[in-house]
């Protein structure tokens, strides 16, 4: 589950991580009030208005703007709120901005030059440990930094049994070229950040940029935070932060029906039991000349009710020109699944796209006969190869 920047920063702050302070606003008037508060409480005459959407690269798309007064903050916010923000990470049509974070200006000059750094924490699959990735090259795309100047990207792996050690924290500070107060500040920052990562069951923290200010303090200027969905049961406070408006409405609906669905851009929908087989079925669609319209795992119990829900979700996508149902009946018997398909089909009246049903496993023959004799416009198959051929055929 992804958090917005302002939510991520709230989470970090609750663990003692220093952040760029700010207030969230949903209207230009609220943005004005936020800017006034920053001016009065934080002595920040200038402020930054940042679009809050679940996608990176917001600055490039015009979703982050500097405002030199509360009046200008209001004006900038009026342009950003309601805009369709397009960034390299959004769909081509962009994402609607519903709120902005009005944040203090942290780049004011001071005794020492400020410096943008990069820090992220995630789970490294190869070593099966958490890793802190850090670089002196903050404020940029880290993948590009890693490609062009790999020696500037450092990693610290954390032993799960003893946790992050002091020497590792010192090493991070030295490698980031810090000394004096900034060294001490960064030590505290990393300690609190790792504590927050573990404490919140996060799957990703990306602080880019992490700023060493001109006063030698260290603060998070941005925060990309993702929480492990499997651990949300122990964080009801974080679960409450879920912003369903940022998610695809069909995916939200599917999740409520306990169906694992991911919307894609293609023309052939699919309904499958099991995640691996579902991905493989998408691949079959592509190899048959189509493009998968979705990923959908109906799970172990493919009864009429679930099949009908899945049908409705797939058909809510106007691009769908055909549907491939691929069920390997193991413990679930194919004849029961076939009955589910037939019942669901009848309940829905007429379905205007061709349907191919491939049922393999227990009682596959009986299931095929049931489909063939149902009088419905449904093509049946037993072998995966036959199903692939049928898909190619209906797309002609």
């Amino acid at each position, binding site marked *: 589950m992804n958090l917005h920047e302002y939510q991520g920063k709230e989470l970090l702050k609750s663990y003692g991580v220093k952040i760029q302070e700010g207030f969230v606003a949903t209207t230009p008037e609220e943005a004005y009030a936020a800017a006034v508060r920053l001016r009065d409480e934080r002595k920040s005459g200038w402020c930054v208005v940042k679009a809050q959407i679940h996608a990176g690269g917001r600055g490039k798309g015009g979703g982050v703007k500097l405002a030199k007064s509360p009046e200008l903050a209001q004006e900038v916010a009026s342009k950003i709120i309601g805009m369709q923000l397009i960034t390299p990470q959004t769909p081509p049509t962009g994402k609607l901005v519903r709120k902005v974070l009005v944040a203090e200006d942290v780049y004011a000059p001071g005794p020492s030059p400020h410096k943008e750094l990069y820090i992220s924490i995630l789970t490294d*699959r190869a070593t099966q440990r958490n890793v802190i990735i850090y670089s002196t090259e903050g404020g940029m795309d880290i*993948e590009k930094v890693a490609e062009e100047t790999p020696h500037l990207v450092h990693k610290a792996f954390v032993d*799960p049994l003893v946790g992050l050690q002091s020497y590792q924290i010192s090493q991070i500070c030295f490698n980031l070229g810090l000394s004096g107060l900034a060294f001490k500040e960064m030590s505290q920052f990393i300690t609190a950040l790792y504590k927050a990562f573990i404490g919140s069951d996060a799957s990703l923290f990306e602080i880019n940029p992490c700023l060493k200010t001109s006063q030698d303090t260290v603060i998070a200027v941005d925060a990309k935070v993702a929480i492990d*969905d499997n*651990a949300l049961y122990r964080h009801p406070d974080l679960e409450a932060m879920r912003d369903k408006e940022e998610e695809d409405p069909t995916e939200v609906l599917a999740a409520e029906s306990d169906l694992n669905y991911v919307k894609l851009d293609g023309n052939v929908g699919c309904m499958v039991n099991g*995640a*691996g*087989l579902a*991905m493989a079925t998408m691949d079959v669609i592509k190899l048959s000349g189509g493009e998968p319209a979705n990923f959908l795992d109906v799970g172990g119990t493919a009864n009429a009710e679930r099949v009908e829900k899945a049908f409705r979700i797939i058909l809510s996508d106007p691009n769908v020109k055909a549907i491939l149902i691929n069920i*390997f009946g193991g413990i679930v018997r194919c004849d029961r699944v076939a009955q589910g398909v037939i019942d669901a089909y009848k309940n829905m009246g007429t379905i205007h796209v061709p349907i191919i049903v491939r049922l393999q496993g227990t009682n596959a023959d009986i299931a095929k006969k049931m489909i063939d004799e149902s009088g419905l416009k449904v093509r049946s198959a037993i072998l995966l190869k036959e199903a692939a051929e049928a898909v190619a055929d209906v797309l002609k």
Partner: protein
Amino acid sequence: MSVLVNKKSKIIVQGFTGKEGSFHAEQMIAYNTNVVGGVTPGKGGTKHLDKPVFNTVSDAVSATKADTSIIFVPPRFAADAIMEAADAGIKVIICITEGIPIQDMIKTKAYIADKKCRLIGPNCPGVITPGEAKVGIMPGFVFKKGNIGIVSKSGTLTYEAADQVVKAGMGITTAIGIGGDPIIGTTTKEAVELLMKDKETEGIVIIGEIGGGMEAEAARWIQKMGNKKPVVGFIAGQTAPKGRKMGHAGAIVGGDDDTAEAKMRIMAECGIHVVASPADIGATMARVMAARK
């Protein structure tokens, strides 16, 4: 011969009396798997499915000399159940549970590292040695005895592969479902290594998915060891978009190296017979086995 489980395995079921545990334990017993008992804290001393129930794994091991455990415990208690099994001296721990928090698994994996046990899963269909032991949730009838080993991240796709191998006139030595999570007990390479060492296994099917680098690691190892047995490989998720989780917690493309395309290329370079379509697994295995003879 076979790997991990056979007719001599003494198996206990953790989460024995729960809905999932009961259902699948019954199926395992019906397959003539040597289930010697089960564990449900608080129900020790009772009987379930005609087998003794124990409060702890340690009690179960003392009483039954169990060496294998299958775990159906809900996600929030499953990591604890794995550690308990390891601590009690269980040699093969098979965790079916899906949805264990990743930080729990990181700790668990480190905890069991110096115990003399092998963890399979979590989030897997289990392990089956046809005709001997079904320690998992797979439909037993699909798996006929033979000389092909299967290593897979997926459940139903494993059944699909086994079905095709059987229909192509061959059979299975042992099918190992390693699981679809980012942190799992036994990697693709480790499972392949077991099958390479198994005398009865003459060919291997590897079923991978997008995400992580385990298939590439296995492929490089197979090549380094001299491609001793023919291997057919399939990677699910060729059409999956970047950055989206496809059902399994581990099935997510992060960068350029963990796409299906990259994995398929590396596997092919290492001498593995890579199929683009999952419909071609059985036929390809039959072809490469015939060519070998």
